[in-house]
């Protein structure tokens, strides 16, 4: 491609071109994202030439600019980490500089993280080429509370060191003055060892890092040091023992906080059926709807509304807690302190991340196991992950537990987490031997984010979005399931005992009773394996639909299920309810999670094996919880 402004020859033969045009050549050198391209574009504007370096696939960018009547050619060298000639970009860059093509090399470094970005300078220093150090992104450094003593750096290096903001052309005065007069080289480059020892890349790099450390010593200061109390907190937060207790404590406090909206908003929503039910039923009957259809519409719409509101209220609270902890930088610390648990379960440390993801959604957690290297470890991680209560469980269980146990809901939730830990340990023993043979384990580094203030606007936006999503999804799923099961209870003669669902239910009842679940609860348990929200729909249809809602909507309208909760509390004993809550929490997470597990491990045999195992253990858990709790309730 030809350039209107310049002739190709000038740019392709830099040396001769320079002689011909008498232009001064400025090479821009820096690591990726150091601001090189911003500076290059600002200097050259539209006067650029883009091509390839001879014989390479690396892009070559040159351009021309003038300042105070003098012409300059700027070469934007490929962005690379260093000049160690490890990649094509590095070879091109090193050859260009070492070949003396440039009159002066401008090295851009990110002033907000000089320890990281000065490695290029340390690599460049031994080349003995005139240079300028541009301490770019000084504005970012200032925002982070970092001050850089450019004068001291200049003194130590022997070359100009300029505070700089590449995105602000008004700040270019010192830069133009420096390139006009540049000619000095770095006076004391890193003292690298003899050629024989140069091959030891780690030793050479250590010398360069020491050189950087000496260079920056006293020249870079953080003015906003963390408060001592904050550091003490972090010491506890990342302590292997205390950190776990702290995380558990914060988790419990978070659960309590999350229940406030559930009790407040959810409590208000439960008034809806008794307030709106009778007039709605009367209206529908008045316009000619049949009693069955009336009860179906009124019961389904209003009760589904209550469930959806209650679930959304809990999600509103729990999202606030977890997003807040994530936003301030604590969640990473919580995952850090629980990393050691992973090795006890036979997994790599990095498996902790998908587990945290699965607290939100098992599907996401299963997809997240891609970071794990071996098939066996991935499959085991997914098998264990199914025991982690996902957000659907965390929103349905409180709604149901609140009906039976009121303020004891918190203990139910804690009990579920305690069982989760035991379940995971047993599951690891059951599947670990065949999935994960003894393997080597190397360490991992988790880069913890600094603590920072939460972004309140974003936080509330997230809470609203998630709550709305939950509300819509819950409404949709619960409504559909309610309608389906409601219809299954329908009979021509109005006698619910003749319905299909009742006949099936009575047939399985002796078996399901053994596990502590009445047939209605057993059907809800089966539905939980498809989607947790479906549980509410099934219970709503079976307990309200078996005649009760008909009566409440038509004749006993003031008690219209003063709502669903009252009916359930009367129909189901506390041991049954407790057994059911644990059974539904530890059965197959949902159909989508099963599909996701299959897609990730690509073994139908193992996916079905895990699913079967979870169904069986959930029923066993139900049996144990029912028998034990019967002693107390």
């Amino acid at each position, binding site marked *: 491609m030809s350039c209107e402004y310049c002739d190709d020859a000038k740019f392709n033969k830099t040396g001769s071109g320079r002689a011909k045009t008498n232009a001064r050549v400025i090479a821009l050198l820096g690591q990726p994202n150091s601001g090189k391209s911003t500076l290059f574009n600002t200097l050259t504007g539209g006067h650029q030439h883009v091509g390839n370096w001879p014989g390479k696939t690396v892009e070559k960018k040159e351009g021309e600019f003038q300042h105070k009547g003098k012409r300059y050619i700027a070469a934007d060298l490929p962005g690379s980490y260093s000049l160690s000639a490890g990649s094509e970009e590095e070879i091109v860059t090193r050859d260009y500089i070492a070949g003396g093509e440039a009159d002066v090399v401008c090295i851009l470094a990110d002033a907000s993280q000089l320890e990281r970005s000065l490695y290029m300078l340390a690599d460049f220093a031994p080349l003995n080429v005139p240079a300028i150090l541009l301490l770019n992104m000084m504005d970012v450094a200032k925002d982070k509370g970092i001050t850089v003593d450019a004068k001291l750096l200049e003194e130590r290096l022997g070359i100009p060191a300029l505070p700089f903001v590449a995105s602000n052309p008004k700040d270019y005065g010192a830069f133009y003055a420096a390139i006009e007069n540049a000619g000095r080289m770095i006076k004391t480059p890193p003292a690298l060892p003899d050629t024989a020892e140069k091959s030891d890349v780690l030793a050479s790099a*250590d010398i360069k*890092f020491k050189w950087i450390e000496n260079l920056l010593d006293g020249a870079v200061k953080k003015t906003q040091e963390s408060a001592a109390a904050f550091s003490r907190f972090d010491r506890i937060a990342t302590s292997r023992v205390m950190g776990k207790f702290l995380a558990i404590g914060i988790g419990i406090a978070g659960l309590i906080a999350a229940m406030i909206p559930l009790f407040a908003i959810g409590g208000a929503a439960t008034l809806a059926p008794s307030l709106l039910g009778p007039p709605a039923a009367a209206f529908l009957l008045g316009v000619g709807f049949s009693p069955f259809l009336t009860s179906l519409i009124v019961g389904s719409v209003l009760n589904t509304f209550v469930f959806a509101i209650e679930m959304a209220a809990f999600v509103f609270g729990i999202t606030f807690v977890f997003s807040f902890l994530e936003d301030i930088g604590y969640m990473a610390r919580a995952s850090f302190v629980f990393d050691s648990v992973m090795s006890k379960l036979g997994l790599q440390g990095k498996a902790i991340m998908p587990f945290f993801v699965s607290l939100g959604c098992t599907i996401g957690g299963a*997809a997240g196991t891609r970071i794990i290297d*071996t*098939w066996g470890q991935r499959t085991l991680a997914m098998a264990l992950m199914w025991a982690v209560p996902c957000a659907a469980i965390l929103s349905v269980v409180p709604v149901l537990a609140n009906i039976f146990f009121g303020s004891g809901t918190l203990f139910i939730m804690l009990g579920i987490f305690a069982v989760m830990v035991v379940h995971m340990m047993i599951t690891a023993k059951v599947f670990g031997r065949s999935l994960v043979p003894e393997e080597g384990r*190397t360490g991992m580094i988790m880069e913890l984010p600094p603590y920072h203030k939460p972004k309140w606007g974003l936080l509330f936006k997230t809470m609203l979005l998630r709550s709305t999503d939950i509300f819509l999804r819950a409404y949709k799923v619960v409504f559909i399931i309610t309608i389906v099961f409601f219809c299954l209870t329908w009979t021509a003669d109005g006698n619910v005992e003749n319905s299909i669902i009742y006949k099936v239910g009575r047939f399985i009842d002796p078996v399901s009773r053994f596990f502590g679940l009445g047939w209605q609860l057993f059907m809800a348990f089966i539905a939980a394996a498809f989607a947790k929200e479906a549980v509410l729909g099934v219970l709503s249809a079976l307990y309200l639909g078996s005649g009760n809602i008909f009566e409440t909507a038509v004749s006993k309208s003031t008690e219209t299920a003063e709502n669903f909760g009252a009916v359930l509390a009367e129909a189901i004993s506390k041991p049954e309810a407790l057994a059911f809550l644990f059974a539904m929490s530890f059965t197959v997470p949902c159909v989508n999670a099963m599909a996701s597990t299959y897609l990730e491990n690509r073994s139908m045999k193992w996916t079905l094996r895990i699913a079967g195992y979870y169904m069986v253990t959930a029923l066993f858990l139900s049996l144990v919880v029912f028998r034990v709790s019967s002693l107390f309730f």
Partner: protein
Amino acid sequence: MLGKLLDLLAEGKTLSQYDLAERLNATPQAIAASLDFLNHAGYLRKVCPAKICCGKQCAACPFVSAALENPPALWEAVRMKEGREADFHAPRPYPPLGKEKKW
């Protein structure tokens, strides 16, 4: 320091940049710079955060964990100090969907 950092990793523990800074008597910023170098030199690799959640499979599910949004950066060893590869990082090839093999 770089050699010692790799030795610490070979012990099999998970460490934060603050742990490393304390044990190696360096600043967290210097540790971050060392991680960058070791990554570039092929000793470490950064666990791809996009793999923790691809954002596609679970997009249909509104239950999204906070941990999805900003996972902490994880680094793992791929080469030991002596240059040999960390053997457990050789992933086995996956069979195509629907064609299972005995593992």
